[in-house]
């Protein structure tokens, strides 16, 4: 197994808040971010600045409130969106790149070569502002492996510090995850972003981490699109004594209990 010290990228405020019906005010976002920062989460994906002025204001306040965690601004592969993330003061500018032909063809209605071209332009804009660039491969688990490799090489050449491998629709198995992450060259930091559609997000994250990934994405209570993301509490329970995230499970549990009323305002979704 590779290095036992691993790091959490919390996306409660971005992917988590995209759960239907979830909506945090600026004050609530800051409260959650401060708690995550105190807990020892290394990176906080605080939202999507392109959503508008309120999201940008939340970003600025989160940046001021957090002392240790790096704050990530999530972006589509779009120069306008990236400009807003930069203006909000995000430490890390994350660019999400559709990797599967299904998303490239059906959603973006574009081509692989156009994706690569746009990504290069986005990277240049981020470097011009001297910000850290991370790149996410959306729907990588359903993508053609040759194109994934090309995107990884491109990400490295464009100066991305971290490559996020996303199982966007949560269809991977632990053995597939292990085989896939093991094949990625170790000249770029790997982050795994697992969804829970088949109930295997925690197990897949563990296998990704054991196969060389440095970061795992997670959310409080496992909230997120559809069946959610990797649940941070469950990940810590499952890896106790095996992997070190620098986060205390006890502290997470009491902080999470404090945040429950903010996260679940009207809903009986928790189980």
């Amino acid at each position, binding site marked *: 197994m590779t290095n036992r010290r691993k790091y959490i990228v919390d996306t409660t405020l971005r992917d988590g*808040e*995209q*759960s*239907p*019906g*979830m*909506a*945090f*005010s600026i004050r609530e976002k800051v409260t959650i971010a401060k708690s995550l920062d105190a807990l020892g989460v290394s990176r906080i994906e605080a939202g999507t600045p392109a*959503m*508008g002025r*309120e999201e940008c204001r939340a970003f600025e306040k989160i940046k001021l409130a957090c002392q240790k965690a790096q704050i990530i601004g999530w972006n*589509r592969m779009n120069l306008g969106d990236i400009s807003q993330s930069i203006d909000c003061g995000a430490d890390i500018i994350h660019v999400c790149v559709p990797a599967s032909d*299904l*998303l490239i063809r*059906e*959603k973006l*209605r574009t081509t692989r070569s156009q994706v690569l071209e746009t990504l290069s332009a986005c990277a240049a804009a981020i470097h011009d502002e001297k910000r850290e660039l991370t790149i996410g491969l959306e*729907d990588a688990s359903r993508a053609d492996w040759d194109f994934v490799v090309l995107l990884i090489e491109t990400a490295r050449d464009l100066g991305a510090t971290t490559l996020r491998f996303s199982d*966007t*629709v*949560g*269809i991977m*198995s*632990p*053995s597939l995850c292990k085989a896939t992450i093991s094949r990625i060259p170790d000249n770029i930091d790997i982050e795994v972003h697992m969804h*829970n*559609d*088949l*109930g*295997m997000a*925690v*197990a*897949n994250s*563990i*296998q990704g981490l*054991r196969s060389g990934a440095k970061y795992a994405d997670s959310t409080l209570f*496992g*909230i997120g*699109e*559809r*069946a*959610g993301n990797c*649940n941070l509490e*469950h990940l810590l*329970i*499952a*890896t106790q004594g*095996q*992997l070190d995230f620098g986060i205390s499970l006890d502290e997470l549990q009491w902080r999470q209990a404090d945040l429950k009323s903010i996260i679940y*305002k*009207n*809903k*009986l*979704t*928790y*189980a």
Partner: protein
Amino acid sequence: MVTIIDRTLTTFNTAGITSQDLNHFCDLLFTCGVTKIELTPDLVARLNFPETAAGLKKWLLGRNFFLTQLTPIAADSMRCSSKEPKPLWQLEANDLLEKNIPVSKINPLQHRKIRITGLDDLMTRDYPAIFKTLLSSGVETLDFCPGNQKHCATAIAMEWLHAGGQSISCGFTNHHNFAPLEEVLMSLSLSLPDNFTGDLSVLSELRSLYEKLSGQPVSKMKAIIGEDIFKVESGIHVDGVLKNPRTYEPFNPQTVGSQREIVLGKHSGRQSILYKLNQPDLSESAAHSILKQIKKRCSQLGRNLSDLELRTLASEVQNDKQTEVYC
């Protein structure tokens, strides 16, 4: 074909369950792909069983038993007279010896029929080697019922089947310490389709009946069966799903008896407004104003807006009214 054993009815208080509900629950479990249903002796009397065909007495020894489906030929042969209803199910001895053993003591297994329980922490161990040891132990029947205290039971169950395991025990939803049945069945249908013949479209009905029988609500975001898992709110996902649902769905919602729904919330985009209001000629500025109001309301309320609330809000914005909407 792998054997899928469901243990749900062994885990909660079944005293108040009617015969009709019990039979319906078992029927739905078989329909969705379960091979055997494990039951406690006190449930025997509430199954609609033709006694002559069942030979119940020998089962009332305090042990759990398995309910299995009869093939049509076997059902005909078990019917004593044409007036007697055709039996659908039969009882089978549960003669599996349960063993909750640490990984270090897996070998040797000296019993002929074994159910391995626990092993919750396999995901952080060298589980392929452990499975290899188990599968080469020479046991005649080897069922595996992985524990879920580490939240990895489904993954362990599926890795077991991929490694060559032929029998797995589960329980419906995650209110107990078993691999959630619905997750195992869906994973099986996607990754080992040749080993799966069930109809998962009954899962939605099964969830409702489970909630009634157990008195426990299923989480709205529970994988496979949660009520909210096919609701789509964020602009990026709505855009993708409207172009082609496969972009952001792991499987068609109808497969599990559900349906997708575009909902309006803080993360909605213009496409959602146009889709919901069915007004293709809505101006850019009107859509922008409506969207702004939706985001504001949803942030205040912490929930989605209903279609009625949207229409009211849209007409207010379009008529340039400032009346407060009481949601």
